[in-house]
């Protein structure tokens, strides 16, 4: 099978919720060709295509969920390759913050689906994620980010009522003088319906879909790096 046929096959497996088949296909490419081919030429372009369709509502949440699971399976079965590969493709500039993030659903929110998908896609792109789970207090998110030196906190909420609780994270960052060293990414169903809500709740950015989250996190990480360089001048 050539690369195009392999991508088509993977897309078919994901859209039809054929998780095992998707895993087998990717692992066979790792074994018969290389890890790099499986990740760069097959999985990532397919996920980009799915992300594109997803942002246009052309695929369902269930199919996006399967994409997340396929990414998760790939990571679990190829541990060791991933960080090396990410370092090769997109090396961390010396002195810049690590690709480390703290994630959680905000206080009173128990809708974990989006968060789980974001974690899979972040890890696939070489991020180290500390997942605090559901119903997380602002102070726990900030304390953890400070402790592990994470430049980004990602907070998820599904409903308007719980999304408003995210303001408490912004408030905690402000009160502790951390706004220039930790960025706040927000996401969840309600932000897709009302993107302007991200700024209203104190977010530094949001992404249309879970697949787009790594680009957002990387841009926020670089923004924090820029802040640090300015402060050090």
């Amino acid at each position: 099978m050539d690369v195009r046929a392999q991508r088509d096959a993977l897309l078919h497996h994901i859209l039809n919720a054929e998780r095992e088949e998707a895993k087998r296909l990717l692992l066979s490419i790792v074994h018969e060709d290389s890890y790099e081919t499986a990740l760069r030429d097959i999985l990532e372009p397919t996920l980009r295509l799915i992300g594109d369709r997803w942002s246009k509502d052309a695929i369902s949440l269930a199919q996006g969920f399967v994409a997340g699971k396929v990414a998760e399976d790939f990571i679990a079965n190829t541990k060791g390759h991933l960080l090396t590969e990410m370092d090769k493709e997109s090396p961390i500039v010396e002195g810049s913050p690590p690709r480390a993030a703290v994630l959680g659903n905000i206080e009173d929110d128990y809708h974990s689906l989006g968060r789980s998908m974001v974690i899979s896609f972040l890890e696939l792109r070489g991020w180290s994620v500390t997942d605090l789970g559901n119903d997380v207090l602002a102070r726990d998110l900030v304390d953890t980010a400070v402790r592990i030196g994470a430049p980004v906190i990602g907070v998820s909420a599904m409903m308007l009522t719980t999304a408003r609780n995210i303001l408490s994270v912004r408030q905690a960052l402000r009160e502790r003088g951390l706004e220039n060293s930790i960025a706040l990414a927000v996401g969840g169903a309600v932000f897709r319906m009302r993107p302007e809500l991200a700024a209203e709740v104190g977010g530094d950015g949001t992404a249309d879909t879970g697949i787009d989250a790594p680009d957002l996190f990387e841009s926020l990480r670089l923004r924090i790096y820029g802040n640090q360089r300015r402060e050090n001048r």
Partner: protein
Amino acid sequence: MERIGALFTGAPIDRPPFTLTLSLYGARLTGCSCASYYSNPDAYAEGQRAVVELCSPDIVFSPFALALEAAAYGAMLDFPEDGPPYLKKPAYKSIHGLVVPRPHSISSSPHLSYLIKAAEKVVADQNGARPVAAPIVAPVDLPILLLGLETWLDMLLFKPDEARLWGQLALDHFISLSKAYSDAGINFVVTPVMLANPLIVNPDIARRTLLPVLSDAFAHARLPIVFHHGGNKLGQSLGMFRDLPNLLGFVLDERDSLVEARQQVGPDLLLLGNLNGPSIPYRSVDDIKRRTISILLDRNGDPKFIFASAGADIPYGTGKEKLVALRDLLSGDPGSLP
């Protein structure tokens, strides 16, 4: 009751029947706190008497408070001052090592007992004057309230054996509650189906995972079932659901086309809709009237159409004048429509 009955006998009717989802609004009309309204069957029945007095709809509802069904299994609820209880936290934090629970008997759950007693009281008040409908959680959606969407989706897609166990609980719960509603004198149940939304589960996957569960549940229900759009467009999925057993018809979203829906479901099933209820407070009386007239003209001559508000309950804060305007328009002579 004659007007609704005529939908099935083909007898001539003076005007199309209508209903408005005013389950919550009864609390506003009687000045009852929502916490009391959704726990005291007498308070609920009094609210529905006030609804009938104000709007005289052709169908009334028992409590539209789906979260109470999940509360029977331990889900944590919040009781807002101006709305029905909603789910704050699913019943089970983790399914690791969890034995799938048995469905609760109605009498052992204060929440389920409330739903049934309130239904009995509304039925008794109506005394056959108009049918009473009971909202009920769709069997494919109950596990979302118990486990969360992620866990349920994971099971449906990848763990069919576990999905079957939880699907069986949802099925048993649905059958037991619909039987209790039937015993309470309810005429039909209305089940909003969230997972019917093609943006959540696309038709190919839905056909494999959801349809068998719905089909089994509907076949065993003791009452006819109205399939509610659950807050999402349903039009493009009607073909998949129209052959479900025991199906009375569909409540459609305001964005759905009733013409296309009728073409898809054929002449025999009821169509209900499609003025969005939750949007009523934010629309002018003129806009509400325009939309209503357009729906009525569109469905003129459709013998299986019931004008109904779509979506969730009509909000607590809705101005009474808007409901009165709707009532006057809907209960008037259809020949006088512009």
